[in-house]
């Protein structure tokens, strides 16, 4: 995806690498207690191999980077705020590592984890 040409040759960063950055950023985000597989097949393979990009989708169409995050949020926190903060953090970390602007970060809240009921 992200490509850069230098006198020595070109640098190519794969979507999977970007997804790993986003994944790590999301897990450090307050309120996020996990990322969820998008579908059953993903979920099954995940049991076998711990995927460092689970719940993250990165699309690159040659111009725009679009990241989709599927997250689980701690019950009792303000979902909108947490989701907004994840989007911010992911965008910031990816842009910082890549040096290329991210055009979209879509956050999908796929579930809540209940540790305590009030």
């Amino acid at each position, binding site marked *: 995806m992200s490509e850069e040409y230098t006198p020595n040759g070109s640098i190519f960063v794969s979507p999977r690498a970007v997804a790993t950055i986003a994944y790590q950023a999301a897990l450090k985000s307050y309120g996020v207690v996990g990322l969820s597989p998008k579908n059953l097949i993903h979920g099954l393979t995940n049991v076998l191999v711990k995927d460092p990009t689970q719940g993250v989708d990165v699309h690159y169409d040659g111009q725009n980077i679009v990241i989709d995050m599927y997250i689980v949020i701690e019950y009792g926190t*303000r979902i909108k705020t947490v989701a907004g903060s994840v989007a911010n953090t992911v965008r910031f970390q990816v842009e910082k590592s890549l040096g290329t602007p991210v055009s979209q970060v879509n956050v999908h809240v796929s579930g809540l984890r209940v540790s305590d009921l009030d």
Partner: protein
Amino acid sequence: MEFDSENSHHNKHQLQFLNKPIDGQALKILVEASLTWLRTNQQLVNSLNVFPVPDGDTGINMVLTMQAAYDEIATSAELNFGKMAHAVAHGALMGARGNSGVILSQLWRGFARGVDNFEILDGPKMVHAFAEARDTAYKGVVRPVEGTILTVAKDTAAAAAEALKDTQDPLQILGKSIVAADISVEHTPELLAELKRAGVVDAGGKGLFFLLEGMLRYINGEPLDTAVTTVQPLSAMNLEDTLETIEPGQDYEVVIDFRPFVPLNLEKFYGNLEKMGTSIQVGEGDGIYRMHIHVPIEKRYEPIDYTMSLGTITKIAMENLIDQMQAIEEKARSQKIKLAPVETGQIAVVAVSPGMGIARVFASLGVAGIVEGGQTMNPSTQDILEAFENLPTDQIVILPNNKNIILAAKAAAELTVKKVTVVPSRTVPEGLSAMLRLAPEGDFDSVVSEMNRAIDEVQTGEITTAVRDAEIDGVKVKEGEIIAMLNRKLVYASHSLEKACLGLLEKANASDYELITLFYGADVTKHDAYHIAQSIGEVYQNLEVEVQDGGQPHYHFILSIE
């Protein structure tokens, strides 16, 4: 509710918390105190961000979250501590802004769960609630980063548990927890490399510390409206006014513009500047900082050396304040008072004046000599003598303008070969009234008799503060009360200046007169004087009310009613 800094409130707050159980209403007060204190210091918290970060407004976010929490309970009459805590948590959850706001709301949520629906808070419950707050906050993240607000919450809870071994008193436990929170905040750069690189402590942790400290400050009666340190926008800095605040020994003003290498640790910056001088101001705009300080002469280069170690200096301005002050004082002196020129054979008047403003009024009416003096600073015979001995005329009128000075004036009159008459004005308005009859070219004896008559045509009101309890002329006064005297007789006592003035005018039958002149004293502001004049104008709509800067000591107002 207001937060005052006066000492008298000190005990009130403490008693409020020492003698009463900490119930829901007490929590409400404490939440407001912590919100106020955080808001006061929000700029400092904002400035602690590791640049550049996506969440660069921690202070604002925490304030808005706490504001939402307080709004939830602001009108609540709930007495149950636990229920009130749940309401706070609900408000914080609904209003959570930013990462720090979400964590804060989780802390409140855990705290509320910890106090369940207990009626009042005691030591063990508080320690339990702190632990719950910590646990709940930690549950909200997969990989807790240490060196953040979470760490501060953890250390605070640990200190509270430790304190419980010594005391059951929740206020003492709170005090010890806050000490631990402070240390924990200072320790955050050791745990988080990003903070250390940026030379700051964690913003969220600092915010939490301010929230806790605000409660304690309120209980201790300390002010909540003065920030620890402040940075203002460059455009808002007003350095012109700082000349008025020069303290002895602060001889040089240094103003430096600089671009810091790394984000400024404001607290440290202020701390170091405070060791050098006073009148510190720091402004920021577009990454450029401007700092202003007054320093003693031997330290005049220290701010420059220090700032150079922090960043790139773009501009330095240094001024010698002593020299400037002298220039200002000289200007003031030259503007002092223009006395009327006297020619040989004319009648000259020497007036005793208790204040600069009054002296100016006398001068504008054509007085040829002014002697300073009044109620507690009677001028000597010699002083009065000197005022007219060198005037190029031998026809002199003295206006003592105070009963106690009449004798000294008469004595001076006998010590000279000049023809001197004392017109015994007992008050400033009497003297001014007499001045209006002065005709410098006129016949001496007829002018003097005109002036003597004028004295009786004016009524004098004086407003001052009673220095002891007394009952005079049928009016009872207590020490510290505002008292009003009409023609040197006590007629009215009150607690407010305005009431004293109005009471006095009523006793003087002011509505029968035409003009009231209000000379305000050295301890009254122009603003207050005009305010009172306006009130008088509203009561006596047919009268003209004039306000003059009298500058006299002791008397808040001298009123001339004519």
